[in-house]
Every structure is written in structure tokens, then in C-alpha cells.
């Protein structure tokens, strides 16, 4: 709402906009700076993580009963003990998720196979945990860019897993470069089908995608339970719901012999690049984002809101389906109920922390993957309960969801509200 004056008569540029508006002068183009923009977007999440770790430190100290007695008798010793307790816990968490720096360096220097394997086990475990989260995070983020809140990644993931495992065990005698892509495509298609339904219902009838996707999660879960009891899917000679085992030609094999991390992560990263291209470089992504930001303007510009709604949900569903596929086609190669410990729901969190940017989603997925991978080693090393990691995750979400709080703590001036604070706007509105 600045002034309207002809250029030749604007002697004092400072005076041109007397209303309180922040001018991000020369802000780089959002659609042309994936990396820069993502880095800027990561400032707040990183501060949120830091704050969560600080609060977590206090929780470590306050829940240590031995320390409590010490505070009364010898506060100085208690302070020292608190410090060492916190560093030991976070140290163990770090060693469990990234590895021992010394061992990592040693392994690279010596190139000794065994040492290499041992040193990289923590990172490998982090990658294992992060892989499905990248997919579900991308799924939620993509839908959100189109103004849709996809709570159904969990159900889409199950459907993807089911179709992938069926293709995985039922086709035999194929070379892996045909069989694996087929299984992946089936996984994508399964999730896409589960995304298509809420997308179509939204576009045709206006049924709210949040309700429909939540409900479809239950349908998916029970559908899996039923399918696993049918002779087509159930493993011979078993009475519990468990599928046949996929052919080796459909398996996502480890990248390095002896480490569990498999090629799924590569596919996940390629998917992130693809989603980034789709959203920020393609004409369809332009439509998606326009529909997400302002459906009326999109309609005015001749875009089809219904098409964008359906297509984005199909792709989002497919991505979530790939999450299930990556889990099923690696490791045991079999499907059983409850194979996902909530990857679909964690995807919402990953998308939120990752600022609904593909690169941010990858970073957030690795963060949560690392916390998850490091939790067990931390517990066995220091006796700190696993639950601390859950608390830290929850705190990260809390601080990310309350950007104003983090800004107040670190006295950061508010950026203009753009698409970045998406979740603060509320449900797919």
C-alpha cells in the first residue's frame, strides 16, 4: 500500500512507502533458488532443534534421581555431574546415529573392510530409518503445496506395500532390472490409487480430504489384514497374516555389502529431485502452487482446480506408496500388518519441519531418522530411556509449529509471512 507516484517525482525513496511494510529488497526468486531458499527456510527448524536439545538436557538432569540428592549436598559437584550426564547422553545419541568420529576417520584411512563396516553401521541405520520418511514427507509436502492436507500417507503406504509385495513374489524368472522397476511401479500405483480416491471425492463433491484420508487409513489397514489371509497373498503353511516372500530379483539390495542401507535411499533422493522439479520448474507445478495459494486466481487464470487436486493427490499417494514399497522390498521382503511404525504420520511432521520444500524434507527425514537410529544405542550406553528421543522429537515439532516463539527466544525479526509458515494457516484451507 505504498504511494503511487511517477518515478520522476519520487525524490525520497525512503518516503515512498510510508506504511509499515517490510521490504525484502532483492529477495532472490523463490522458484529459482531451491538451495538458497531451502537454507533460509532451515534456519528456524535448526534453531527449533537446538532449543529442543537444550530443553531435553534439562529433562535429562531433572529426571536423574541420583543427581537430585547431590544438588542438596554439593551443588558444584551436581553441576559437574549434570554436565557429564548430558554430554554422555547426547554423545551416545550421536555415536548411535552418525558413528564414532575416530572410527569413521580410521575406517576411511585404512580402508579396512571390517572396520569400515563397523564404523558406518550407525549411519546406515540412520539411512534405513530416513528412507521411508523422505517418501512420506514428500507426499505430505506436495499435497500441502496444492492446499491439501494429506493425513492418509499411512494408508497409501500400506496399499503400496501390498501391491509391491504381490508383484514381488508372483512374478518369477525376471531379471532384476525388469522385476524391481515393476515392483516399484506397483507400489507407486497402490499408493496413487489410495490418493486418487480422496482427490476425486474432493474435486467432485467437496468432501474434505482430511476426513476422507483418515478414514481410508482404517480401510487400508483392514484391507491388508484381509488380503494377508487370502491364499493369493498368505504364505503357505502359515496361519498368521503374513505374505509370501518376494523374489530376490525384486529386492532392494544393500548399497554396500554388510551394511543394511539399501538402494531405496537413492530412489528417495531421486524422488525429492523429481518433486522439486515438478513443483518449481514445471508448468503443472506452477498450477499446483497457484491452486494451493489462491484457488480463485487459479480458476481465473484458466487452470483446473479439480485436475490439480486429483493429480496432486495421485502423486502424493504414489510417493507414500513408495515408502511402503521401500520398506517391503528391502530387509525381510515380506508384508505383515503393522510393518510401518507410523511412517505416514511421521511424514506430516517431516513435511512440517522441512518447510514443505523437497530439500528441507530430506534434511528433516534424516534428522528424525538419526534420532530414531540413535535412540537404542543411547539407552544401552547411558541408561537414558528411549523416551527422551520421543520427547526431543515432540519438542522440535512444538518449536517448529510455533515460529513466533523461536523468533522471540532468539530475537529474530519476522520474515514476511509467505508460504513458509504453511501449517500455521490450518487445514488445507
Amino acid at each position, binding site marked *: *500500500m*505504498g*504511494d*503511487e*507516484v*511517477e*518515478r520522476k*517525482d519520487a525524490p*525520497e525513496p*525512503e*518516503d*515512498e*512507502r*510510508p*506504511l*509499515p*511494510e*517490510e*521490504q*525484502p*529488497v*532483492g*529477495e*532472490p*526468486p*523463490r*522458484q*529459482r533458488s531451491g538451495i538458497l531458499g531451502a537454507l533460509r527456510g532451515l534456519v528456524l527448524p535448526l534453531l527449533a532443534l537446538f532449543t529442543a536439545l537444550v530443553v531435553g538436557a534439562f529433562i535429562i538432569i531433572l529426571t536423574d534421581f541420583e543427581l537430585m540428592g547431590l544438588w542438596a549436598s554439593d551443588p558444584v559437584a551436581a553441576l559437574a555431574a549434570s554436565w557429564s550426564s548430558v554430554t554422555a547422553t547426547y554423545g551416545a545419541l550421536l555415536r548411535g546415529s552418525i558413528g564414532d568420529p575416530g572410527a569413521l576417520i580410521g575406517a576411511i584411512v585404512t580402508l579396512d573392510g571390517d572396520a569400515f563396516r563397523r564404523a558406518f553401521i550407525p549411519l546406515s541405520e540412520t539411512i534405513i530409518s530416513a528412507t521411508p520418511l523422505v517418501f512420506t514427507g514428500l507426499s505430505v509436502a506436495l499435497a500441502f503445496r496444492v492446499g491439501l492436507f494429506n493425513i492418509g500417507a499411512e494408508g497409501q503406504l500400506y496399499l503400496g506395500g501390498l501391491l509391491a509385495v504381490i508383484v514381488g513374489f508372483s512374478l518369477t524368472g525376471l531379471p532384476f532390472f525388469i522385476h524391481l522397476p515393476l515392483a516399484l511401479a506397483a507400489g507407486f500405483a497402490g499408493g496413487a490409487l489410495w490418493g486418487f480416491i480422496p482427490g476425486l471425492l474432493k474435486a467432485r463433491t467437496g468432501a474434505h480430504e482430511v476426513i476422507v484420508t483418515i478414514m481410508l487409513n482404517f480401510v487400508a489397514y483392514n484391507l491388508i489384514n484381509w488380503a494377508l489371509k487370502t491364499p493369493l497373498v498368505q504364505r503357505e503353511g502359515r496361519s498368521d497374516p503374513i505374505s509370501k516372500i518376494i523374489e530376490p530379483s525384486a529386492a532392494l539390495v544393500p548399497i554396500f555389502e554388510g551394511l543394511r542401507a539399501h538402494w531405496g535411499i537413492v530412489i528417495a533422493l531421486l524422488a525429492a529431485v523429481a518433486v522439486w522439479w515438478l513443483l518449481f*520448474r*514445471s*508448468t*503443472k507445478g*506452477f498450477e499446483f*502452487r*497457484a491452486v494451493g*495459494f*489462491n484457488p*480463485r*486466481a*487459479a*480458476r*481465473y*487464470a*484458466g487452470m483446473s482446480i479439480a485436475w490439480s487436486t486429483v493429480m496432486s493427490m495421485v502423486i502424493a499417494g504414489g510417493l507414500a506408496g513408495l515408502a511402503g514399497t521401500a520398506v517391503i522390498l528391502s530387509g525381510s521382503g515380506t508384508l505383515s500388518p503393522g510393518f510401518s511404525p507410523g511412517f505416514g504420520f511421521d511424514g506430516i511432521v517431516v513435511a512440517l519441519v522441512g518447510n514443505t520444500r523437497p530439500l528441507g524434507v530430506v534434511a528433516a527425514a534424516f534428522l528424525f531418522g538419526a534420532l530414531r537410529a540413535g535412540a537404542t544405542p543411547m539407552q544401552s550406553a547411558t541408561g537414558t530411556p528411549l523416551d527422551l528421543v520421543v520427547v526431543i522429537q515432540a519438542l522440535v515439532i512444538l518449536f517448529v509449529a510455533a515460529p513466533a516463539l523461536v523468533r522471540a527466544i532468539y530475537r529474530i*525479526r519476522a520474515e*514476511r509471512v*509467505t*508460504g513458509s509458515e504453511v501449517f500455521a494457516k490450518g487445514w488445507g484451507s
Partner: protein
Amino acid sequence: MKLELRGITKRFPGVVANRDVDLVVQPGEIHGLLGENGAGKTTLMNILYGLYQPDEGEILIDDAPVSFDGPGDAIDAGIGMVHQHFMLVPVFTVTENVMLGVEETSGPLGALDRDAARRRIVEISERHGLRIDPDAVVEDLPVGVRQRVEIVKTLYRQSNVLVLDEPSAVLTPQETEELFGIMRSLVEGGTSIVFITHKLNEVLEIADRITVLHHGQVAGTTTPDATTREDLAAMMVGRQVDLVVDKDPATPGDPVLEVRDLVVRDERGHTSVNGLSLTVRAGEILAIAGVQGNGQSELVEAIAGLRDIERGEILIDGHAYGTDPRAIYAAGVAHVPEDRMEEGLVGDFTVADNLILTSYWHPPYSKGMQLDGDAIVASANDLVEQFDVRTPSIFNPVSNLSGGNQQKVIAAREFSRPLRLIIAAQPTRGLDVGSIEYIHGRIVEKRDEGTAVLIVATEIEEVLALGDRIAVMFQGRIVDTLDPSEATSERLGLLMGGAHPEDVDVEEAELAPARTVTDG
């Protein structure tokens, strides 16, 4: 009560919204506060109302300094504000709305005393000639009456100084006249009024004194007798302004847009365009005047291919395109939508992205599925230069721009290609003099190039300034089509309000117009 603002300065990060502003409102005076959008009027009034604290300067009431920490303090000091957007609860009655916040209670349980409030409201409305039904539900009331409720609300709180923020923006000419009557009667009763506006005619008609703000500073204080429209406009904008659109007589060519017997329904299924016919020829501007909500929006959407038509036909150069906005676009139709931010622009998108909003799907902006960033940037830089869009960079979100610059972005996008027809709905709504002049100029320029132009406007001034022919729309029909020479404000106002053309003729028999009625 005498109100004085002395040396008010208010800074926001990076900008000075008000600089050393002095304003004296004498008891019983209507003080016009004139300025372009963004000149600092609203900031100044928010300081007066206690919403902002000034960085420097002071507020004096009857020569005694006061300080307001919030609107509560300002109200207690006798200052009442009627905002441009009404602050009423639609489902409450007039009485309930007026007493909201200062409820009178009776009995030990504090039951609401509606009767006492009602009596005071009746008393106030009789004293000031504010006709109002205290038991009416606000959502049933027309806009003009709602405004009266707002005024009664301030009087109920015993305000001595009334601040009216752009009060005529939502009113018909007749309602505005009524408002002015109320203002005069209030001033006779000793109330002072600060009347904020950017409309020159109104301030000249009603104000006792006029203060003009420009760039947050007082550009001058004057009286209506001592100044002219031209002088005021120059003070507001900081340079001489052409108030009359400078255009030659139209040279109409072949019909470009033909609408025949059109019937369109709105979202709720009501028939909002009801058997309307019109023709716009190449090289002429047809201006449709009408009070908002008489089917103009639906008409425009139907022509732009955004709304199904129930009956009748819309032909552009002889072709019917139905609901295919892309085909209509490709046929050389530009559409300036009614609501810039709601419809014409994606606020979170950059200026560059908004400039390709209706053309991203074809070369040179995209090849296949891929957008061509270089072509987009090159064209955006070009258009920003050509249409004088003031933005720090083409990569700024368009929502950061002023209203005038946002409209220039739309104009740049829509007018920068070969056109056959322009449909513009309220193209200058909410814009200030400088921007209006610019947009009008661009439209006339397009007309002179042979483009057919259909303008929908609620401001009579705009209709008179632009139209080569003027059609009045009422309840989904064109009730009359006039030549600008025979269209006066009064006459248009009456027609817009639903008066029958013949009745208007009787009232203005001396005009004896020879008009063409296109409506069948």
C-alpha cells in the same frame, strides 16, 4: 471539544509513516483528511485511536495533553471511530450491536438491560435524524444503514469527535447524500468530525476545512472556498494531475462482443443476470454503471468463460466459446478481475510469476512441461519497465506491492498482447488519483488501438470519465443506455437505484434524451 495533534511522527522499520503532522479539529467542524492510499491517513487515525503510540508529538484535547494506551482510552476521551469495514455482529440486532462492550445491566445477576439501551438508541436516532430500527437484525440491513448503526454506536459511547474512515466507499450516491445530511446534523449538535477520504468532490462538498497528507507529511491545510479540485489533487499527488481522462471521440468499428438475452445464475442458484443484451464495438468503451450486487460480477465471469450460462449467448467476434477461459484468452480477450488480490493475483507468488499467470502454458514461457525461467525473467523485466511497476525486484511477492502497483501488474499481464476485447471490472477500485489516471490512460490507449472495452464500475465518476456509452445495470438487466453527454450523476444515481427510465425522464424532462435501449 477541540482536538489537536501536534508534531506527530511515527516510524516503522524502514519507513516514516507520519512526519511532524499537525492537525487541529475545532469543535463543531467537519475536517476533511485527504490523501492517497499509503499517505499515512490510517496510521495517523490509529494513533489518535490509541492503536499506535507516536514516536514524537502529542495529542491534546481542549488544549490538555492526553495519552492513549488503547482504543478504550480514546473512547473514554470521547473519540469515536467508524472503520471502513464495519465492526458489527451480523446476527445481533441493532440494539445488541450498539450496546456490545458497554452493556447496561439490571438486577443482582447482571441481566442485560436491552430496554434501557433501546430507549437511548431511539433517543439518539431521533435527536440526530438517524433513522434506524433498534430491533432489526444487522445482517438484514443495507450497507448504508449498517453505517448508521456504527455512527449510533459511537454516539451511544458519547463521542464528541467522530472519525469516519472512507465512509462513502461502500455507498450509493444517494446513500452518500444521506450520510452527508447526518454529518451536518451531528456537527450542528456540536460534534466534530474527521472525514477521511481520497475523493475530492466529497471533501469539497462537506468539509469545513481540509488537510492534505502526502508522503506522511502535511502537504497543506485549506478550506473548500480557497481551493479547487485540481489544486487538491496536485497537493495529494505532489504534481499536476489530469482529472479528466483525455480522450478523443470514439470511432466504433465492427461489433466484437455481442451478448444476447443472457441468463446467468450465481453460486446460490439465484438468477443474477436476467435476460441481458449488449454489444461492444471495436474502438469504443461501454461502461456499465450499477450498485454492486446487481449481476455485474456474474456477467463478467460469464463473458470470461468462468461461469456457466443458463440461457442466451455470448459471441466474441462471432464465436461462442462457452466455459473455456483459455480459448477466450487466445481469442484476444483481456480480463481485469473485480478483486485484485482475491482473483487477479496469487499474493505469495512473485511479480514475475504473476506476470505469466495467464500465459505460463505456452511458449515462450514454457517448453513442453518445463517453464523457461530465462524467458519469464526477461519478459517480466521488460513489462515492469514498460508499465512502470514499482517493485524492488521482479522476485518480490506481489502482495508486498501497493494496490496501484498490483493493478499495474495485472494491466501489464493483460494488456501486453494483441487484444480484441478488454473486460475490466472495477479497474480502479481502491486506487488513488495517480494510479487511476494511469490505468484510465492505458485503457483509453487500448481503445484507440481498436480494442473493444467493457468496463464495470460502481463509481459514477469513473463511468462518466471512461464511457463512450453508458449502460445502467439493475437487478440483472440493462435498464437504460445513455450517451455520456446526457448522463448526469443524478440521473445515473437514480437509474442505479432502480428508478424507471421514464420516471427519470419526467423528473428531468428538459433533457429529453434520445437514447438507445439495448435491453429487450
